[in-house]
Every structure is written in structure tokens, then in C-alpha cells.
């Protein structure tokens, strides 16, 4: 208590605001150090425990900052660091919560999933370095830091996808992910250079200032913005850079799929939100350059394509991969429903809240796949037949995730989708909400197939499930309880999200 008082009376130095990123990075280094003591042994509980503890510690610090108002208007506004290259504000802290809690769930689940693998220390270290990159992505305030942190998040991800070295699918997925990733990085970097050519700066506020003064190179600017947008489309698995996602999510170890489809996607949105809102404010765009329109097209195409592709899958993991593309489309509403004088903070906040809820339900769903893979059950819907009778608790949790992803009450996904569509209507984009609602109704079809297989179809295999792995169960049940509790506790989430989003405009 006295320590806390001391902290409050003497404010922390500014650099302490990046503490969540520092904690993640240091935990990653610590893991490497521990692993180097005895590289041949794989003491998974210790490694997973440290990784989980580090993530949770970063989560707690970010949560504490958010409650204390660090970087928000009440305590003097955003904290700029390193010559404005990084900025800590409410939004970056909110997204940090998503990355760290997903990293924690993935770490604890990996303890069982990787129990027979080598190089476990490296695995957890890579997860934490990727998470560090994501936190920095949400804090970046310059196109240069955005690019560097995006690479910091991406490079470990490539290695993680290919972690199962003797599994063909894993390697293929990693290669595909890496090639498309490299391509989109190049496009992104080229876009940055074009924007620099048009505005003469990389810092978001300076770019915005240059735009307000007018630019003679509208075409170059527009081209640059479109290319930057392509870079984000890759990171968030949105059309047209979504091709890697089904393969990568299907081939990767399931906990890594969970990590990529929840945290990495959210990171893409975090940096996209900041770049487009801070650097290219709607009110200061030159005529003919309209990124809102681009995002509207992307949102509609992404959610529709993701949903229809998901409906045709026979493989559960692949279905979830496409559903994750569909959800990227919903989250894009956060940028697509912005307008010059609209309730922009509400729209953006709703999208952020949806990403948080999605972090729980989608991570949980992929971790259930990890559990099923751990047992050696197959990957198609039919292989899931009758699992409900064999593993009721995990199956209940999976049903919760499926219903919540479909947006059915009484789960968190219901509120987050509702608020998202509601805010789109409020902003005057009722057609966007209508497309979202129709897609959401369609999605019930393929989500309910999983539930039907788990509980209703008769068990045809004689497979005996092995032991009940503690780590995977803990993570899955934690995610399920989180998904459930986010319904009654949605008020603080949405209020925080909309408050911190308001600071951007």
C-alpha cells in the first residue's frame, strides 16, 4: 500500500509508459537465458509459466496505466517518446491488454501442446518478441516505427508458423506466410516512401500538417496511402491480402494460429487506426483521395468473402481461419463508418471493443482445436462427432465460443457485434450494418455445425481420448469465462474503448 502511495505521489518517468513492451521483451530474453543453461532439456512448465507470468504482468501494468489514466486527457494527454516516434495513450494501452492476455492464454496452452517438441524456450521467446512488436505497433507514431515494429511482430510469427519442422503442412504454411508477408512489406515500404515524397515527413502529426497545407502531389499521396493500406490488409488478413491466412492458420501449430488470428490481427488494426486517423485526417484529405471509401469496399468484401468461404469448409481449423477473415471485415467497420462530423469515437471504440471480445472467443476456439489435435482427433467436422460426451467441459467452452462468434446472446460477442452495428447505423451507414448483420446471421450456419458435431451427431470412432491436459484446459476455460463475463461487464469495456478512441480525433 505504501509503495503504491509512493508511486502516486511521485509520478513515474515518461519512459516508464512503455513498461508493458519492456516487460514482454525482457521476459523473452529471460526465457532465452534460462533455456541456454540446459538447452537439451525441455522443462515446459517452467518455460510456459515464466512466459505466462510475464504476459500477465504486462497485462496488469497496462491495465493499471489505463485505470490511472496514463497518457489520457486527465493526466496531461498522450506521452510522446523518442522524438515523437512512439506515443503512449489510451488506445495503445487498450490494445496492449488484448495482445498480452492472448499471449498469456497461448503460452499456458502451449505447455501441453509442445510437450514432445524441441526448442521450447525459443518458442515462448518468439511469442513474447512478437507480442513486443505488437505493443510497439500500437504505440508507433511515425511511419518508420510502424514499419519496424510491424516487422518485429512479423518475423517471429513466420518462425512460429513453421515451428513443427518435420510437419509438411507447417513448413508450407510458413513459406506461404513469409512470401506474402515479404511482398506486402515491400508494398508497405514503397507506400511509405510515396507518402514521404508527397508530404516530406514520416511522423503522423507532421504528415497531417503537411496535408492541411495542401499538396501538389495528390496522385502520389493517394497511391502511397493505398499501398500502406495494403500492408495493413496483410496484417489483418483482409481482402485482398488474405490468401496466406487459411494456409497459415491451418498449417501452424494451433496455439500459434490462435495468437496470429487474435493478437496479430488486432495489432494490424491498432496501427491502421492510428495511421489513417492521425496522419490522414478525413477533414484534411485532398479531393479525390478518400480512404474511407476504400475501407468501406474492403469491409464489405472481406466480411462477405470470409463468411461464404467459411461456409464451404470441411476442416474445422480452416473454417475458423475464414471466419477470422470475416471478423476482420466486421472490425473494418471501425474505419469504414467514419465521416467528417459523425460519432467517430463511438464507431472506432465499438470496433476496438469487438477486437477485445474477439481476442477471447477466437483464441479459445483455436485452443480447443489445439486440444483436439493434442488428443490426435482428426480435423474435419465429422471427426468432432460425439466429443461432447467424451469431454463435456471443453465442449461446453467450445460451444460458448461458437455461439459468441456467431453473435448469439448471452455471450460477449453478442454485445460487441450489436454495438458495432449500432454505431454504424448511428453514423448513418445503415447499409454497412445491414451487410454485417446479414453476414452475421449466415455465419450461424457454419458455427452451429461445430456445435452439432460435438453434441448431436453420433460418435463413430472408437478413439479413446488421452489425459486431460491442465494447461490447455486452463486456457480454454479462462477464455470461456472471459467470453461469458464480457456480457455483464461490457459497460466498462465499451466506455473505456470509446473514451480512448475519442482522444484520436
Amino acid at each position, binding site marked *: 500500500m505504501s509503495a503504491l502511495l509512493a508511486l502516486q505521489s511521485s509520478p513515474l518517468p515518461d519512459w516508464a509508459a512503455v513498461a508493458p513492451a519492456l516487460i514482454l521483451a525482457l521476459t523473452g530474453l529471460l526465457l532465452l537465458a534460462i533455456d541456454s543453461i540446459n538447452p537439451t532439456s525441455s522443462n515446459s512448465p517452467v518455460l510456459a509459466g515464466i512466459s505466462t507470468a510475464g504476459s500477465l504482468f504486462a497485462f496488469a501494468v497496462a491495465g493499471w496505466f489505463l485505470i490511472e489514466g496514463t497518457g489520457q486527457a486527465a493526466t496531461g494527454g498522450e506521452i510522446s517518446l523518442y522524438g515523437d516516434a512512439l506515443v503512449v495513450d489510451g488506445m495503445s494501452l487498450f490494445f496492449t491488454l488484448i495482445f498480452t492476455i492472448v499471449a498469456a492464454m497461448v503460452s499456458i496452452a502451449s505447455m501441453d501442446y509442445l510437450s514432445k517438441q524441441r526448442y521450447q524456450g525459443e518458442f515462448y521467446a518468439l511469442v513474447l518478441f512478437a507480442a513486443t512488436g505488437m505493443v510497439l505497433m500500437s504505440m508507433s507514431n511515425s511511419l518508420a516505427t510502424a514499419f519496424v515494429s510491424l516487422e518485429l511482430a512479423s518475423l517471429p510469427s513466420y518462425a512460429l508458423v513453421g515451428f513443427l519442422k518435420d510437419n509438411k503442412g507447417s513448413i508450407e504454411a510458413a513459406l506461404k506466410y513469409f512470401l506474402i508477408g515479404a511482398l506486402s512489406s515491400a508494398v508497405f515500404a514503397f507506400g511509405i516512401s510515396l507518402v514521404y515524397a508527397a508530404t516530406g515527413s514520416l511522423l503522423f502529426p507532421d504528415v497531417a500538417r503537411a496535408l492541411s497545407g495542401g499538396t501538389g502531389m495528390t496522385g502520389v499521396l493517394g497511391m502511397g496511402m493505398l499501398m500502406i493500406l495494403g500492408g495493413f490488409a496483410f496484417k489483418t488478413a483482409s481482402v485482398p491480402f488474405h490468401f496466406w491466412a487459411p494456409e497459415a492458420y491451418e498449417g501452424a501449430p494451433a496455439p500459434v494460429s490462435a495468437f496470429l488470428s487474435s493478437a496479430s490481427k488486432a495489432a494490424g488494426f491498432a496501427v491502421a487506426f492510428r495511421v489513417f486517423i492521425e496522419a490522414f485526417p478525413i477533414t484534411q484529405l485532398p479531393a479525390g483521395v478518400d480512404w474511407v471509401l476504400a475501407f468501406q469496399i474492403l469491409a464489405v468484401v472481406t466480411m462477405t468473402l470470409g463468411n461464404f468461404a467459411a461456409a464451404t469448409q470441411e476442416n474445422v481449423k480452416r473454417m475458423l481461419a475464414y471466419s477470422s477473415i470475416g471478423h476482420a471485415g466486421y472490425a473494418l467497420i471501425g474505419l469504414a463508418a467514419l465521416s467528417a462530423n459523425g460519432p467517430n469515437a463511438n464507431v472506432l471504440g465499438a470496433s476496438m471493443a469487438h477486437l477485445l471480445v474477439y481476442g477471447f472467443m477466437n483464441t479459445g476456439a483455436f485452443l480447443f482445436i489445439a486440444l483436439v489435435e493434442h488428443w490426435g482427433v482428426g480435423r474435419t467436422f465429422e471427426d468432432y462427432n460425439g466429443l461432447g460426451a467424451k469431454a463435456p467441459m471443453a465442449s461446453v467452452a467450445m460451444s460458448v465460443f461458437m455461439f459468441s462468434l456467431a453473435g448469439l446472446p448471452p455471450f460477449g460477442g453478442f*454485445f460487441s457485434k450489436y*454495438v458495432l452495428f449500432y454505431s454504424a447505423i448511428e453514423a448513418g451507414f445503415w447499409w454497412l450494418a445491414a451487410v454485417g448483420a446479414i453476414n452475421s446471421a449466415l455465419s450461424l450456419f457454419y458455427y*452451429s455445425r461445430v456445435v452439432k458435431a460435438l*453434441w*448431436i*451427431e453420433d460418435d463413430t470412432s472408437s478413439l479413446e481420448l488421452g489425459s486431460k491436459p491442465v494447461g490447455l484446459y486452463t486456457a480454454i476455460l479462462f477464455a470461456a469465462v472471459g467470453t461469458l463475463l464480457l456480457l455483464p461487464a461490457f459497460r466498462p469495456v465499451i466506455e473505456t474503448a470509446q473514451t480512448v478512441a475519442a482522444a484520436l480525433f
Partner: protein
Amino acid sequence: MLIEGLIAVAFVAALVVFVSPNEYAGRLAAALSLLPIVGSLYMWSQFDATGNALLGGSIAFETDFVWLTLGGLDVHWFVGLDGISMPLVVLTTILTTLAIVSAWTPIDTRQSQFYGLMLFMEANLLGVFTALDFFVWFVFWEAVLVPMYFLVGIWGGPRRKYAAIKFFVYTNIASLAMFIGFIALVFGLGDSVSSMRLPEIAMALRGGELGGFAGLDAGALKLAAFVAMFIGFGVKVPIVPLHTWLPDAHVEAPTPASVMLAGVLLKMGTYALLRFNFTMMPDVAQALVVPIALIAVISVIYGAVLALAQQDLKRIVAYSSVSSMGYVILGLIAYTTYGVGGATFQMVAHGLISGLMFMAVGVIYNTTHTRMVGDMSGIADRMPVTSGIFVAGAFGYMGLPLMAGFAGEFFIFQGAFASTVHAAMPLFTAAAMFGIVIVAGYLLLAMQRTLFGPFRFDGEYEVTEAAFHDVAPLAVLLLLVIVLGVAPDLFFQMIQQAVNPILQTGGGL
């Protein structure tokens, strides 16, 4: 806090039963489900609401606080009871326990999951009847579907998967239509409402605050929303021609699920029609009186004729539910004390009687493993107690005086005859009354062929009297049917109090 306690107890009971071993799950669930009964009966004894909860009446056991704030439209956790919902809460708690006990014999696999789902459904049903905020209500309304889907899909008959998915798809699409209709109304009300609380919306709608929305003017919007909501709720009731999911779901569902489906889930539809369409938009309802009354009469007659044509005992009872729900619609559209009050009373009465009938058919099926009328005769010889209660219940269905069915139907007919909403109401009523004749026809026919005459049974099962715990719920239900028939005022007084405000402000009736 009583209502929250009631719902929470049911949720916790569901969780406890879900993780309990299969051998004890049934007994444990029955014991735990007594707690909500005690709670609801206590609330009934302490009930002090007057008037209609939506129209400014005082609300019993009210809780109201802001759950989340959404750009000008707050979502409240707002629950409470009035004279319309109180009887339905009591019905839900009692019927759940009896249905659980009736499941002891037929359910022999994955018991803990079965009973867990039953209690989970009870918790959500209690939420549906107590919620007074649209959002809270909608959450519970949708959540009721999930356990029902599993109950039919896992423990049902041979075509259970088809029946379960048909039920789920029908009711979900219906919910979507209703949701869109209602939300359009809320948007049309604009700034005149600041929350999703039903009383606030009802008052604003009746106060003429509705503006246009999405290119429709106020009148067209109201009509469109009324129709969308009527269709949405009509699927649940069900009204002809939206009833086709019901026979499939009933026939495939295990007996206890059928009891809940007919006894309580169908009442969600009529309850919602009364709360939303008929309370909030009486002017539209009265403008549409001819089509609605026509739908009611068609449901009554067509349902009864279909029942007449069935060979499966369960199908007979299922179609007769369609017929009985037609009476409820007729009572609602009459807009008289006895009409609307009788319709509400009939919801409870029909819940008890149809529960009794489904259970009786289930008990016979447990022994004979067939429900086909032609496969057996003279069952009364071997199962005298069950058959006796079956006969008594059937007479209740036909509307024998001093039984609850008589009181409900009598009120409805009295109210509908006296109604002045349309000159042709007496004609519609007379046509609907003809349904009673058909009901008597098919029930007597079915009983004569299965229960009476010389004993004949082609199956290889021994036909003997059912166990005590199978017959006891039947006896309790029969007792309740008679009690409510002798003393309808147990509920009818509070119902009347809650119903009258609807009529007073509903166009001078």
C-alpha cells in the same frame, strides 16, 4: 433482488447438475428445482403490483439500473413482475420440476447434461417473463433456444437432427424479423426515448411520439413493425401457416422437452404478442382485426382438423396445441377484460393441461414403446391409474367445467362475443367455438381406440402400471388443473388488474 436470486439459483443449479455424476443427476436436479418453486410461490404470496408494468402500473420486485450506455439509448438491467408475468413465472417453476421428474424413466444416457440443460432453460425462461428491458428480454429470449435445440437434437427420436435444426432455423429467423421490427420502431421514436426499457417505449408509442425512419412515415413504419413482430412471435406461438416446425419438434423431442415446449415455450410467443404488439400498438392491432381474427380462427379449426387426421398420440396433442393457441390470439384481439384476461389465463391453463397430456402419452410410451393409435387397445386394463388421469386431462382439454381449460376458454369466448372491435367478432367467435367440437371428437376417438375395449397390444413389451414417480407428476398436474378450474381467481384477479390498463387506453373499449 428476489428475481435475480430466482434466476441465479436456476443457473447455479444447472451448473451443479451438469458436473454431477449421471446416476444422481435426475434426483439432484429435481431437488434443486424445488428452490425456484419455493421462491416463485413466496413471490406470489408477497405480490403487490397493481396495473400493467408497461403502462405505468406499480411493478413488483423491481430492479432497475443502467447496464451500458450506448449513444443516447441506455441498456438497463430492468426486471420486475406484474399480473401478467407472475402466473407465468409460477407455471414455469412448477412445470420444470414436474418435467424433470417425468424424465427419470425415459432418459437413460448423459443424464447430467440433460438435467443441466433443463435447469438452464428454466433460468432463461424466468428471465424472459421477468425482463422489462428489451435488451435483457432479448438475451433471455434467444438463450432459451439453445437448450431446447440440444434437448431435441441429442435425446430425441429417430429424426431428431432434422427436427432440431428445423426448430432452430424457424425460430431464429423469426427472432430476426421481430428484432428488426422492434429496432426500427426504436429508431423511429428518435430522441423521445432514452433507453430500451419497455415501459418507456410503450408509453412513447402510445403517446404518438413515433416519427419516420428509413423512408417510411410514422404510420407505415408502425404497420411494418407490427407485421414483422407479429410474424416473429407468431412462429413461436405458433399460428397457421407458421406452425410446421411444431409437430416435428414435438414428435421427435423427448417427453420432458415436449412438456416444456408446449407448456412454457409456446407461451413465450403469446406473452410477447400481448406485451409488444397488443400493448404497445393497440391502434394497429385494431386496424388489422379482421386478418388477425381470421388467423386465430384458422389456427383453431385447421389445427383441430389436422389433429383429427393423426395416428400418433403425440402428434394429436401437438396439433391440438396449435388449435388452443388460436383461442389465445382470438382472446387478445378481442380487447375486452375477459378476452385479454382470458387469453392470459388460458396460457397458464393450457400450459398445465398440455403438459399433462404430453406426460401421459410419454408414460404410456415408456411401457409400450409405441404411440400409434392402431397398435394398441384396452390399455386402461393394464394401466388404470395412468389411463384415468389421461382421460381426466383430455376432458380438461375439451373444456369440462370446473377444470382450468373451461375457465380459460369460457373467459375468451365471453370476451370475444362482447367485443366491439369489429362487427364480425361474434361470427369469428362462433366459428372458433366449433373447434371445441372437433377437439372433443378426436380426443374421444383416440381414447376409445387406445384406452378402452378389449386389451390388445402387438409389441413384445410387458404392459404394466407405471412407476410411482412417473404417475406422481401427472397427478400433481391434474390437481393443479382442477384447483385453477374451481378457483380461477387465484390468478385471474391479478391478470385482470394488469390487463385493464391496456384496454382503457386502447381506443375506449
